[in-house]
């Protein structure tokens, strides 16, 4: 329950940030201006990042499926893979930052993009930490097929993290 509400709270925070971002973008375009101007954000890295997170959602649910059936080896592998996908996402985001050609202090658009994506990285870090702690507790022998609320909470929070990036992907990288 607490994980669900925390995920909802994060979702609302990003809804606020994206709302402000889209409102400013809309006002700029309505005035006849260009939002990102000459800046070109390559599409491939964000698409790969989205696909990576979708795969990580599958592995997260694989971990939950395994723990429900008391298949601990699969649960460990799945949780580990999910965290690896998270690390891969962070690596991709760093690469995208280097390719975007945006400097944070150069324009309002750059500041907004870095603020939103940077905050998302923080949320992803929290999700990875939550999953890592859950994995260590599973390795320590906790969680049974009937009592695995922490795993459920971690997977639910991971799902929310993936869903939120979907909105960021569309609002920032697709719409541009």
């Amino acid at each position, binding site marked *: 329950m607490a994980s669900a509400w925390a995920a909802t709270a994060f979702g*609302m925070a990003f809804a606020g940030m994206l709302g402000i971002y889209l409102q400013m973008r809309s006002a700029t375009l309505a005035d006849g201006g260009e939002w990102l101007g000459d800046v070109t954000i390559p599409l491939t890295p964000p698409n790969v990042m989205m696909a990576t997170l979708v795969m990580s959602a599958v592995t997260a649910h694989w971990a939950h499926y395994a723990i429900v059936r008391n298949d601990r080896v699969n649960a460990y592998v799945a949780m580990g893979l999910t965290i690896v996908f998270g690390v891969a996402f962070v690596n991709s985001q760093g690469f995208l930052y280097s390719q975007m050609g945006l400097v944070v202090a150069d324009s309002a658009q750059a500041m907004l993009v870095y603020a939103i994506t940077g905050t998302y990285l923080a949320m992803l870090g929290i999700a990875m930490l939550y999953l890592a702690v859950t994995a260590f507790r599973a390795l320590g022998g906790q969680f049974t097929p009937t009592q695995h609320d922490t795993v459920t909470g971690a997977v639910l929070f991971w799902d929310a993290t993936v869903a939120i990036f979907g909105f960021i992907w569309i609002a920032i990288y697709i719409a541009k």
Partner: protein
Amino acid sequence: MAVTDTRPDTTAEGAPDAPATPRPDPVVAALGSGDHKVVGRLYLVFALVLALAVTFVTTTLGYERIDQSGFDLYATDTYFQVSTLTATSTVFLVLLRCCSASPCTVVPLQIELGASATRPRRRRSGATWSRARWSWPATPSTAVPAGATPWRSTSGSSRSASSSPPCCWRPSACSRRSSSTARRMSLFRVPLFTWSMLVAGAVWLLTLPVLLGALVLAYVDHRYGRLVFGNFDIWFYVHWTLRAPQVYAYAIPAVGIIAEIVAVMGGVRQGRHRVMMALIGFFGAMGVGAYTVTAYTPGHDLYDDWMWIVMGIAVVLPLLGLVGGWADTVRRGRPRLHSSLLFAVVAVLLLLVGAVAGAAAVIEPFELVGTTWQQGQAQLVVFGTFVAALAGIFYWAPKIGGRPLGEGFGRLTALVFFGGVLLLAGGNLAAGFPDQVDHLLVSTQEGFTGVVEVDDTVEIANGASMVGAAVVTLGSFLVLANVLASYLGRRDEDPGDDPWGGHTLEWATASPPPRDNFDEVAMVTSPAPLLDEREPAGDEEEGDDR
């Protein structure tokens, strides 16, 4: 070598007795406690002290605003920084904290949560200290011209900690499978106060993170050149939290507190329990104002926003329904004029007037948007909620501190608050009709020097508002003095565990409750289990409560 020896019997005759566990220092025990009751008391103390400070500063600001020909007490920049500080502190440091004091203590008792629920208590303790730690730097940081950056960081931390208590007691209120809760306790049998806190927690968790998101953007912008919000525009993205409809989200606990007090002081069961729950839920839904995060920005006409107009008018409906339910309860019973009931009546009147003023604000021909009318309307709702929170403190004082608060003192304080808030908010309402602009919105214009031309009528209204702020400050002092005198003074008589004839489970245990709250788990068959023991439920309530 295998360890197979049996340990010597340490309790054998002649062996020394185990040393008694030393009692912890009271201050250390309070600061490090995970007991929800201790945390509730800490919330109460912090809230009352901060209320006194904030209302005093509000009085000084009211003095500056009387004629607006210049600034006597503050420098121009400092005045606006302190104005935003008091506006946000009133809600986030005083009101939400005061609204957390009673729930922290009472909600686990109302659902008979036993000692096994320790994990939520540690988070509540952490939330208390996180908010306490971050509120102090916020105060002096706005007194210097470059104070905006520290204000943003500390207020953001304070607001993030504000959402932490709902995360703690909401799982408790939602849980029906815990073996330490009352048997047969269901969601439809929780007391109205617990239900209102459930609704409030949900609404706060849905809306306040939007503010946090805006503050994150503001902080990054301020750090890297102020390209988006500049020096002033961030106020438009914070302003919505202090205006309708979001301001009604803070009033949700108030209706729950009033519902509890009216039924008990009336001496009768609250009728139509599920209808009252639905009305509280509807009222809570009308407080979801996060969609207005961009609505107060320049160039955006609020009168084009149909949702804002509909919610501004619709919020009156559940409030009227609740008032009708309470009036029916009072009509059927024999009300006792206890100070908590007096506070509750004052709160109801202020909330009703505030809701009607909010409905008037959405009527376009009146042109009240951007004027001090909106400020006065918000003050009615905010201070009405504060008065309701004080009603809860007076009502649950035996559970919070072990003894009731001073009764005569309490009645006087209720009347002081009634007059003070009416003057404070009424002055702003009266000044708003001749279109006195909301001071902080005007201040965002480039080249603004702090001087605004006002006529004599507006000056008189502003003066009344200042007097009202001073009276509210006096009321805050009276409450704090009452609390300190009652809890630190000599105990003359034992009022008993249930001095009011309560209906709900918190009155089934000692005052104050022991560490583990309850010795045995009760069987609950209605939202008023103690009243069931004294009298059977009437036929008309059976369908609602079972």
